[in-house]
């Protein structure tokens, strides 16, 4: 099982600023059987509303510092966090035991 956590702002096309990862990318990951969700500085209620608007039933929506909680809640073989910031994405992801990917790396990675 693979779990993917998405940052929103600067990472997803819905972000402020928009990132390069499309909502379709997330939808495909979900369809592929991955555990997916968001980890963002946006209010949790706003994250949930965004996913609902796109009809994606995510497994989690948490604040930026809660990747450790996600890891303890879900059993997976590998945990990824995709984000655009060294200080607010990469470092906390690695501290929480996640593998970190920049958005362009996520696009290039063969997920199948």
């Amino acid at each position: 099982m693979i779990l993917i956590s998405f940052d929103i702002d600067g990472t997803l096309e819905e972000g402020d600023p928009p990132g390069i990862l499309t909502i379709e990318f997330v939808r495909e990951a979900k369809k592929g059987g991955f555990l997916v969700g968001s980890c963002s500085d946006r209010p949790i209620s706003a994250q949930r509303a965004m996913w609902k608007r796109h009809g994606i039933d995510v497994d989690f929506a948490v604040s930026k510092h809660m990747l450790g909680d996600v890891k303890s809640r879900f059993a997976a073989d590998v945990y990824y966090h995709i984000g655009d910031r060294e200080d607010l994405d990469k470092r906390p992801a690695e501290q929480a035991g996640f593998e970190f990917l920049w958005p362009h790396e996520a696009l290039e990675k063969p997920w199948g």
Partner: protein
Amino acid sequence: MAAVGIGHSPTFRRWDGTPENSVGGISLKALRRAIQDAGANPADIDGLVMDPSTTTGAFWPQGKPLPWDAINAYNRTDDPLDGITGLSADWILANMLELSGIGFTMYGVGCMSNAICVAAQAIGDGRAHTCLVLKSWHNLEGRYYQGGANAGNAIPGSSAIRSLWGTPACFGTAVQFAEYCRKYGKSHDMMAPFIENSRKNGLKFPEGYWAQHRPEEITPEDYAAARWIAKPANLFDNDMPIMVSAAYLFTTAERARHLKQKPVYILNHATSRTRPRGLTPTLDEVEEDTARTARKIYEGAGITANDLSFENMYDGFALFHQFHIEGLGYRGLKFGEALDFYQTDISISGPNPVSPSGGNIGCGRSRFWMHTDCIQQIQQRAGERQVTGVKPEVAVSGGPMPVGGNYMVWSATPD
């Protein structure tokens, strides 16, 4: 004197590089909208008061090519970044040729609150009879507070101590709030209703950033789950920098009668320039100063706390709003009581509206939503945000800091 016109620019998270959305471009838009709102003839305006600093903490990066397309789209001054990362009165006047009667210009440095005080005093002193007041903010790509003096090898003054150790901007307020909670037996989660109420009000402010771009509420759950910036100040206790500009048109009470909008009179302005003993004011110093400011506000206006229909004191950081309103004795509050007050009905439909503008928490960093809201509420032009539990007759706004700021009393009547 009275406020007779309001003009706001659209908001943006960051500058997109276009001339029309540069800080100069949005300032021209706000100024022209204020003049139009008042129904005034630009040639009749004889004063301009503004803040030349427009940074939210973002500076033009050293070595980055200058944005000549945007610079050359306007009549420029000697400083090529005038209108891009700063704004002079010369730049405004060079690009608003319709302001042919300006005989008085002055800078009100810091924020709109100071500019309003300067403009009000200028009209009171007869130095101008009809005065534009302007405050604009720019925000560039990348992180803020990383450039400017903070990027240098040496920092002058007390900033050498504060900045050297890298505390975030909200650190001082967080320290004061921690002591407040200890002294009065309160907790950070008691701020949740204030935050929720502020964002709700902000989403009813069509000129604001969150209403325009990201209509997101902040629920108590969201607030509790937010990460700490400087514990006990979390992410949502801080405001978000944006690009925005606002302008007001002020004139004498006599001239105001002949313009389009209902005049909103300024009964008084007051200033705090108290120097704390240390780098960060202690809670005792904060309480002493907010009480002193309140005495000045009320005495000069000839009113008491009981006369306030609502309050719009500054909130950018949210954790000091209660210092402002406890000092004012708003609705009889004493020190240490505001967080309990937040657990009651503080909405725009209740008898005790708190920050009906939504402030910076509800609308983004500008430090002027509170003033616009006071004017609009008293003019009955606040739309969905209009207070309904009280009759909007007298209001107070101002900031930024509880120790160090400028404050004003707005009224539906001149006395």
